């Protein structure tokens, strides 16, 4: 249920972006969910849509557009590009759980399938990013 904290940060970031853009209402928030962190999508979505919007009027009619992004690890040692399933992370246990809280702890458990190195870049699919917001201001034409 730490998904609520992640959802909360997304909405805070969205509201800040709305401020910057002079929006009075946010209609749509586009979020990318990285595979590595394995968030519980239902909890995350429930937090975004049901629990949190009450925090700000500008979120009253907001819609969410969530999409998932696969992990792409790139080995700094041999250059191999690999995915979560090839990284040797033990599923359904402590390793998964540690990475769920802090994706960088993959450096403790994940290894390059070609050379065994823990020295990789997480090129994509790490965690939650706010891709885009759409909205309007009172004095928008139309």
């Amino acid at each position, binding site marked *: 249920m*730490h998904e609520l*904290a*992640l959802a909360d940060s997304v909405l805070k970031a969205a509201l800040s972006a709305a401020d910057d853009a002079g929006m009075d209402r946010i209609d749509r928030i586009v979020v990318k969910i990285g595979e590595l962190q394995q968030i519980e999508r239902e909890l995350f979505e429930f937090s975004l849509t049901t629990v949190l919007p009450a925090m700000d009027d500008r979120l009253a009619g907001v819609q969410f557009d969530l999409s998932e992004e696969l992990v792409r690890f790139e080995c700094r040692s041999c250059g191999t590009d690999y995915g979560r399933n090839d990284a040797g992370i033990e599923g359904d246990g402590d390793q998964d759980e540690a990475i769920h*809280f802090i994706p*960088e*702890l993959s*450096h403790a458990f994940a290894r390059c399938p070609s050379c065994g190195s823990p020295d990789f870049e997480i090129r994509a699919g790490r965690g939650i990013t*706010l891709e885009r917001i759409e909205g309007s201001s009172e004095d928008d034409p139309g």
Partner: protein
Amino acid sequence: MIPGKSIDPRSFAIEDRLAGVSRIVGVSGSKGGVGRSIISSTLALALADQGKRVGLFDLDFTSPSDHVVLGVERGFPDEEFGIDPHFVHGIHMVSVAFFTGDTAVPLRGDAATNALLELLAITRWGDLDVLVLDMPPGLGDTNLDVIQLLPRLEFLLIGNGSKVVIDSVRRGLDLLTELDVPMIGLLENMHRGDERAVESLALAAGVPFLGSVPYDRDLEDALGDVDRLRASAVYSAVGDVLPA
């Protein structure tokens, strides 16, 4: 937001997560092994014993020590609306060692920055009088990150009288002074005999000298056992180090 540029939402949550924390103290000093972890842990313990609400956050991700000093069992924190620090010996505590157990965590600087951001975004520290940050050595990512991310942070620098330590701490002190980072002062650790080099350094740099924690040859036996830590010379010395 800039069209086409995605946003990392984590930093937007930090201020709120720390809203109930009155004071954030970064125990630092650019030289390794000067006793940041010992001081951070015993300071947190002493403040808790005084009835203060205290947090302890071990930011030396690749070589965490506070769980060893305080003899804390590993185990995942509770997860509810975020993560709750472990509450042990009266201290609210977070360490990556709780997540990884005995496993080594090799982390490049940018990964350490990400881990810090993540923990700041999800940890519910609640209401605290003091949050103590145990910093890693050097002048690298994590020390630069806390300066950037936590404008309320005050540094408490640790040094000792060894020439190599004085040389290193002087550099760090000069930099923090130049950057106008809030500084509680410089604390000498492992004080022996009539050594005055740390005091002189504080004087020369124009920062408060916070006194001396004695070298304690029995400290080693007290590590991992809070009752013995409470009886140590280090514990007695750190209790009133933080000016109000």
